[in-house]
Every structure is written in C-alpha cells, then in structure tokens.
C-alpha cells in the first residue's frame, strides 16, 4: 500500500462514515465504490466492504440497543436466516462477470438515489415549513 492510497483510504472512509450517519444509509453502498476507487476489483471490493461495515454496524447497533429501539430476538432470527441467503448470494456473485456485477451495483446506487429523493420530497410535503 502506498502512502497516497493510505491517505485516500482514510479520507474516503471517514467521508463515507459521515454520510452514512447523516443520511441514514448503510456504509456498504459507499464502501464498494471507495474500494473500487482504491484499486480493488468489483467482487473483492464487495467482499471487503462486508468486513469494513462491521465496526460501524457494531457501534450503531449498540447505540440503538441503548435507546431501546433494537429488538434482539427479531434481529437474531432475521440475522440467522440471512446466513442461508448469504451463501446463495455469494455463489451468484462469484458466477457473474465483474462487469455485470458492477452494472448491478450501479443500478443499486440509482435506486437508492431515487428512494432518498422520494423520501425527502415526501417529508417536505408533510412538513412544508421545516425546509
């Protein structure tokens, strides 16, 4: 790893974290492009993103548990069931080409952008004086 990669990684990681907290989106949709920008391939970036989100998720989940919003039993059932889906998803992802996977990811970003605009516009229609 070169010094410029380290500096860029820290800056982009910090920025991705701030934005995920600020806009209530998961870190993954920002980490994958960040890791691609740092030179990783699409599948490696996605796999690495799953590890990179863990510290943020752990801090967030602990905070939400303290606020009393997190239902541990539901979380464990959904999480345990997801393990089955994960193996299936990883098989699909590794069977696709890097280009196809990257296109899927781009579509995901567009979908999140549309959802954010829709949510913000709806909130504004409901509370017109708050903007």
């Amino acid at each position: 790893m070169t010094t410029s990669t380290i500096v860029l990684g820290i800056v982009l990681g910090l920025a991705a974290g701030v934005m995920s907290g600020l806009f209530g989106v998961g870190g993954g949709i920002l980490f994958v492009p960040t890791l691609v920008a740092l030179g990783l391939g699409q599948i490696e970036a996605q796999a690495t993103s799953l590890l990179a989100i863990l510290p943020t998720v752990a801090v967030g989940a602990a905070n939400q548990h303290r606020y009393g919003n997190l239902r541990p039993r539901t979380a464990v059932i959904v999480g345990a069931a997801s393990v089955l889906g994960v193996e299936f998803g990883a098989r699909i992802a590794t069977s696709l080409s890097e280009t196809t996977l990257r296109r899927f990811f781009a579509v995901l970003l567009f979908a999140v952008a549309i959802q954010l605009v829709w949510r913000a516009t709806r909130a504004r229609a409901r509370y017109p004086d708050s903007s």
Partner: protein
Amino acid sequence: MRLIAIGIVAGIFSALLGVGGGLIAVPLLVLFTQLPERVATATSLGAIGITALAGVVAYAYRGEVNFEYAALVGLPAAGGAFLGTMLQQRIRTQHLTYGFAVLLTGVGVWLLVS
C-alpha cells in the same frame, strides 16, 4: 416464518452486492411485521451484524476479502458515522439529501463507464 423469509432475502441481497442488506430488510420488516420504522431500522442493524459476518466468512473462504483495505476504510468510517449521526440531530438534512442523491447517481455513472 416471515422473519426467516426476510432474513434469507436480505442475506442474498447482502452477499450479492457487498452491502448490509438494510435497504431491503427495513421495508420488508415495516411491511410484514408491523414494527415501527425506527424499531425496524434499529433491529435490522442488529441483523446486519450477523449477515455481514456470514458474508465475510463466505468470501474469506473464497480468498476475496482484503483485510488491510477493510481496516483502512472501515475504522475511519466508524468514527465518521458517529460524527454523522451527531450532525444529523443538529442540522436539517433535506436539502443536503438532494445533493447526496446527485453524488450517488454520479458514482453509479462512473462505475458504468469505468
């Protein structure tokens, strides 16, 4: 039974795209379990911890996880998320949200052409 189905769908989505899966789990929880949105979001965070860990194991087994890069990006991000959540309580994010949506669209276009 519903929770198990939601978990499986979120797991596929998460491993396929390298994201937590909250994007799909939160609306499904709100729709099918009558949990309020705030509770659904918080609960999905707990589930994502397990989902992402399973994803790391599945991909590490295939040799695709880069541990150095995960630490390089993930550790500053945890600090950043703490800061972002604090800022969210203090400033109105509505206008910023539009800018963020434009940024995401730009990143998507960059991925398509790169």
